[in-house]
């Protein structure tokens, strides 16, 4: 960017951190104070031994809080929101893209968020849009099954969308007990006794569904098949609106994915 001296210069180093948002904020701290823009920022479990020098950045709540406060005061509230959201997205090299955004933001201030045509901002905005779009679709595509009075659903989104749909489902099923299991990210939203929390869960064993549950699934499948008009059939249009990667968790269309081998 002409007219601005960059805060950090490219350096031959890879940062590793513990995968938490606080950990990422500490990487920002590290980058600014050692005046270096790392080649890559990786989570510890993803890091592989290479010849490039790698530095493990420890998570320090005090430093994280300082970075958080500095984003608020030196850039804007919206920048913090954008970074927080982008952190949950599936953007490739998201940590590095976010760091680039913040380094520019510290120089240019609040207006960076409004420069929607700028490459660093546009990248994060696109990631945010992808995440929020997926969260919106999931509000419709989650399918619960009644298992002994509790509602259980499985999702496999690309982004870590669970925190963004939690509020909606908690408000909708305030009187119920439910769980949404996120297969991709190994997490589950559990709501019971008017309390919701997101837990780390690797696997969930579901019991067989009951007869009445099977009956409602059959009714729904019948409704879904009947409501379509044959002379307007348009599978391409259906796929545009309801991409196939959601189908495996939707009882009415999962049968279409694997046609029975005769």
């Amino acid at each position: 960017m002409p007219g601005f001296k960059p805060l950090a210069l490219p350096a031959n180093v890879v940062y590793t951190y513990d995968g938490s948002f606080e950990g990422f904020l500490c990487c920002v701290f590290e980058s600014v104070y050692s005046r270096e823009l790392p080649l890559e920022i990786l989570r510890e479990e993803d890091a592989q031994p290479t010849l490039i020098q790698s530095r493990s950045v420890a998570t320090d709540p005090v430093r994280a809080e300082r970075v958080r406060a500095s984003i608020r005061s030196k850039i804007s509230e919206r920048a913090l929101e954008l970074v927080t959201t982008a952190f949950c997205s599936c953007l490739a090299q998201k940590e590095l893209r976010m760091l680039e955004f913040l380094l520019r933001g510290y120089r240019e201030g609040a207006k960076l968020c409004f420069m929607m045509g700028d490459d660093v901002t546009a990248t994060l905005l696109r990631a945010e849009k992808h995440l929020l779009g997926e969260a919106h679709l999931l509000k419709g595509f989650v399918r619960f099954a009644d298992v002994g009075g509790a509602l259980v659903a499985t999702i496999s989104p690309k982004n870590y969308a669970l925190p963004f749909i939690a509020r909606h489902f908690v408000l909708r099923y305030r009187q119920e007990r439910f769980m949404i299991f996120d297969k991709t990210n190994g997490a589950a939203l559990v709501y019971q006794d008017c309390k919701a929390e997101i837990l780390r869960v690797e696997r969930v064993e579901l019991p067989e569904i009951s007869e009445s549950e099977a009956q409602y699934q059959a009714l729904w499948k019948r409704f879904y098949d009947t409501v379509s008009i044959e002379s307007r059939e348009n599978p391409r249009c259906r796929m545009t609106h309801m991409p196939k990667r959601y189908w495996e968790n939707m009882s009415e269309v999962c049968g279409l994915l694997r046609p029975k081998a005769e």
Partner: protein
Amino acid sequence: MDLMEKLTILTNGAKYDAACTSSGADRPGKTVAAGCCHAFSADGRCVTLLKVLLTNHCIFDCKYCVNRSSNDCRRTAFTPEELAGLTIEFYRRNYIEGLFLSSGVMRSPDYTMEQMIQALHLLRYRYDFWGYIHAKTIPGASPELVRRLGLLADRVSVNIELPSEESLRLLAPHKKREAILAPMKQICLAAGESRQEMAVYKKAPQFAPAGQATQMIIGASPDTDYQIIRLAAALYGKYALKRVFYSAYIPAVADSLLPALDFKPPLLREHRLYQADFLMRQYGFGAEEILSEDMPSLNPYLDPKCNWAVNHMQEFPVDVNAAALETLLRVPGIGPTSARRIVVARRHGRLGLAELKRMGVVLKRAQYFIRASDWPSGARFDKHTTVRALVDPNVFSFGTEQLSLFPGASSLRQLPEAGEARSVAEAVEETVLCLASNL
């Protein structure tokens, strides 16, 4: 008859209704204010609501309808308990956002409305269901019943069915235009009053908080696109409708007054009408700007916005770094979102093509109509290039559809078969030449 069979019959009767949106009701958690699609059926239409009839018994004999009294089909009805149970259980599993309740006319319009009100009342107050409810009023029902229905439902709609009184008299002899417009006016006034009361007293009863909608059938009668668009504009203006839905006529029953049973539904025409409708609602176009007496049909090759642009080349190019929001909205390739983004972003720096692309402007179409900081670099484009970029590639995927049944309404020749790559390419060339010479 068991529930499965009833559901099948009553869904079959209701599926031709176009509206299946759930937007406009704001009860956090219970409904999504912006609307929420729960599935998409094989025809690509969204499934948001449990769309069923209360009954498919009908005393009316509307020629175009599957449920007409002279049609020999199985008849049944839901009991209010069955309907409520089904809705609650589907809603609980997140299959649906709520209920879309329509009905055939059983005994009399008033009797049918009472049945519907009873079912909705049970759902709202016994089962405590606060999801979305869209209810159709029955033409000819008394105003008091319409009022009670409006207090239970989020959206109320009256189907206008056919675009002109003439066609209505011919094809739906039991429905009178007054019987359709009177409740529409009543709903519009009552909803307005309710909004005023709620401003004073928060707990005042809400009357159809998500407004009203209507739908009409396209292609069953000889009405032109211009008449349809004008009617829609009048409905938006006069009765404050939220949406007008257009549904391509699908032959369900044979009748000498109707197109033959092997008639293909005019899907492309329906698509163009929706595009024109969006131009009126979100882009600030007037009906008279989209079509006129001399040009009564929408162009099948160009979408209405491109069509307007190529016919008004004197308004272009538009400078994206200076033009007002309303002017930006008229540029093909710039939609409401990107127009708003441009207005915000240009305060912080001049915009070039790369920035516009990143903001979501479709440069394929927009490049011929804009001036940016680094554009245009050279000479202006000729008309052929412009038109070629604008021809809707989807038009040929609609295949050999008949654009208009009635001679004189459209002078277009039949579209070539989809899949025949050569003939499609030829057709594009021919279209380009034809359109460019018209400019």
